[in-house]
């Protein structure tokens, strides 16, 4: 860490994008890196020739939820574990609630399942929209080479027009209001109980869900059209998406229904090989025989891999044991979508990108929008279902609590909660396999590959950071989740060192996308 005695030079993305080295010959010291706990951190080591030896993607924080939930009443887990992440609290809440069903050996009534799923669908629409418009989308809507100062939500607003921007903002607010109706509040809701939900679904709620769902389908279609216009009709973007720099051949994992179609709320977990063939399909209970976590000394996040294959290191291709989750992996792991409009998009997706499976990381952005459409359609289907209103929205558990696993597809991938209790329902042991953690090994590979492709002869071109960022931004990673740590969004630090560990350069990106570049 520098001593801060030299002047700090701050540059915007705009100037960072103009030239390879905007401050030739000047010494610029690092602004002492703020909020390091919240940063994703990339360390690049160069060999003597100035080529990348290896790039590390580090997650530098831990909170220890698995430990401090010990001794807590298990029914509190949906509320306690939602505090892992304030961005996707509903995902943790739901995985925990399903784990409670299993712990108490109770099957919720159909009405309860539908209430849970309609709230979950509203949440997925909201979260996927947030990613496209605020986080990942700006790279495409404005272009990876657009002036950095514009490559953010404000730039998107300008590009799509204020009326359309209002649609985005109002859709977010209305979806969050729906979650509030059922769950009390959108951040850290309270509706999940073993065997059902805490309160009845009313006619008034139903009419509000119906109105928003109808608009959500239109909103998703509008967003896909926008993606078509801006990205798919642009040869350069398409080449970027399908380029080798951003591709990895790994296994893919996702939850599917009985017909092997994508499902966020319930089903079995399916894993397909890098060639797209079914390798395993398993129930939540069996997760520990399929998934294992590897520990590296340089990150607080653990790295998931396929247990029967063993840990084979950060390697893709034929000899990999690494798998991927989240939108692209879910589409690869399934045979289709359960709603008609999303199914059409699903077919078009694979036709356009050369057939299944697709291994281009950046295709996650398109896959995410197809899921957005599915979630909106599913919400509309459920909102029309009169069973939501039936009075049997809970089954009181009668069995002695023991052990259970709950799984959902979180926006960022498969999310597994596993609890063991004593006979009084106090947690004795908890294990959490969290969405981003499933992707951690593949993200680490993507960052390494991007760095190797972009840094040569010791030179760090100014545009390198965004290109590396794009490698992991497509995953919509959440390091709060990955380490059960914090926070939800992800500022970034990139440092480049020579073989002796001496600092050559450092780039910092705040979560709004601004860069601070420092050259030692």
């Amino acid at each position, binding site marked *: 860490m520098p001593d801060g005695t030299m002047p700090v030079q701050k540059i915007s993305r705009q100037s960072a994008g103009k030239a390879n080295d905007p401050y030739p010959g000047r010494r610029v010291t690092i602004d002492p890196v703020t*909020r390091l706990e919240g940063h994703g951190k990339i360390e690049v080591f160069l060999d003597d020739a100035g080529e990348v030896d*290896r790039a590390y993607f580090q997650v*530098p924080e831990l909170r220890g939820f698995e430990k401090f939930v010990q001794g807590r009443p298990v029914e509190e887990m949906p509320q306690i574990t939602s505090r892992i992440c304030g961005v996707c609290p509903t995902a943790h809440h739901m995985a925990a609630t399903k784990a409670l069903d299993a712990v108490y050996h109770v099957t919720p009534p159909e009405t309860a399942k539908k209430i849970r799923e309609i709230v979950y669908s509203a949440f997925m629409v909201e979260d996927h929209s947030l990613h496209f418009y605020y986080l990942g989308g700006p790279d495409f809507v404005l272009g990876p080479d657009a002036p950095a100062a514009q490559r953010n939500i404000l730039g998107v607003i300008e590009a799509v027009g204020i009326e359309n921007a209002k649609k985005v903002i109002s859709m977010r607010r209305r979806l969050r209001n729906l979650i509030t109706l059922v769950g009390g509040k959108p951040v850290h809701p309270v509706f999940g109980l073993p065997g059902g939900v805490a309160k009845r679904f009313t006619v008034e709620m139903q009419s509000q869900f119906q109105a928003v769902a109808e608009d959500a389908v239109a909103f998703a279609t509008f967003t896909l059209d926008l993606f078509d216009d801006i990205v798919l009709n642009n040869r350069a973007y398409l080449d970027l998406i399908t380029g080798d720099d951003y591709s990895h051949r790994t296994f893919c994992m996702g939850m599917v229904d009985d017909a092997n179609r994508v499902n966020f709320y319930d089903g079995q977990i399916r894993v397909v090989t890098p060639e797209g063939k079914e390798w395993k399909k398993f129930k939540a209970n069996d997760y520990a025989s399929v998934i294992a976590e590897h520990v590296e*000394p340089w990150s607080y996040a653990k790295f998931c891999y396929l247990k029967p294959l063993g840990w084979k290191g950060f390697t893709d291709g034929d000899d990999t044991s690494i798998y991927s989750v989240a939108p692209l992996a879910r589409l690869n792991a399934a045979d289709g979508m359960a709603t008609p409009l999303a199914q059409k998009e699903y077919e078009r997706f694979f036709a356009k990108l050369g057939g299944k499976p697709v291994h281009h990381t950046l295709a996650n952005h398109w896959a995410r929008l197809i899921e957005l459409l599915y979630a909106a359609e599913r919400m509309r289907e459920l909102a029309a279902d009169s069973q939501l209103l039936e009075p049997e929205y809970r089954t009181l558990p009668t069995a002695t609590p023991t052990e259970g696993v709950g799984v959902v597809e979180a926006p960022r991938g498969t999310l597994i909660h596993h609890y063991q209790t004593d006979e009084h329902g106090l947690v004795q042991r908890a294990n959490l396999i969290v969405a981003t953690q499933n992707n951690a090994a593949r993200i680490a590979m993507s960052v390494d590959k991007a760095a190797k492709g972009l840094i040569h002869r010791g030179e760090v071109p100014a545009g390198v950071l965004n290109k590396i960022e794009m490698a992991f931004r497509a995953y919509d990673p959440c390091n709060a989740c990955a380490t059960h740590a914090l926070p939800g969004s992800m500022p970034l630090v990139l440092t480049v060192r020579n073989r002796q560990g001496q600092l050559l350069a450092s780039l910092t990106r705040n979560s709004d996308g601004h860069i601070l570049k420092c050259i030692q």
Partner: protein
Amino acid sequence: MTREKPKIAFYWCASCGGCEEAVVDVAEQILDVVAAADIVFWPVALDFKRSDVEQMPDGSILATFLNGAIRTSEQEEMAGLLRRKSKYLVAFGSCSHLGGIPGLANFFTRESILQAVYFDAPTTENPDRVMPGLPLNDRHGELTLPYFSDRVRSLDQVVEVDYYVPGCPPQPKIVTRAVLTLLGEHPPTKGSVLAPDEALCTECPRKDSKPDKIALKAFRRPQEIQIDETQCLLAQGLLCLGPATRAGCEARCVEGNMPCTGCCGAPGRVREQGAKALSAIASLIDSQDESEIDQILATIPDPAGTFYRYSLPASLIHNKRGV
């Protein structure tokens, strides 16, 4: 004549991101306020760095809203810096105010947490017993991780705090009111919690159903009963912490038909929320017989984790233990 706009800042330490969402949720409502103030530091949204803050004159920020608990030395330094630069330092949200749910980690030692996560987790395969965060001795020895410290602290255990905005996360009305209050002419008394100084029961939509005297032979867990959607939850035997919790959220969890878990902390006259909650709950026990009282208390499965759900780091019992 133009008057210089007041400066405000937002910062986060050990938090989940929910407080940032809470700020965004009220953004539309407080646009006018934001137009009347300059946001000079907000790492989640704006490109101002620590060095920018360091260069500001001491006391030049009117109010800094800091969320998240304190677990690392870096967070402590930032708290100190923002304290110096701000006229008002505001602890925003339960973690900053009281330690919050991650503060439950203070029931356990640092070592036992690391052991659980990296050695004992059922899916973790760690034959070489690799522990993240230890210095690396290979050629990549510069690769380090921040130290995972021994305990979680609330903001006022690290620096002086002027005001508190309670809640997990703070509800929109509380946030709007707090910002307006601090930008207004008459700042409240130092040390105030910027929410109504009364128990949640006073604004609970079910307050009319609360009996004058509640007498319980057993406490109930939410999975044990069909929860009536109109009746006082305490009267149904649920551990609702409304009587020991500050008002202001408009009983959001009760609106969800679940008991209050105490995220807004205690009303002002109460020093120790957990003790107050315990005594409020104990006063409902319908028995004079000691062994029967013990039996009834035994129906509360996790008293410490329930009554101190959000306030363990800030509590007296915790600090007395010196953990």
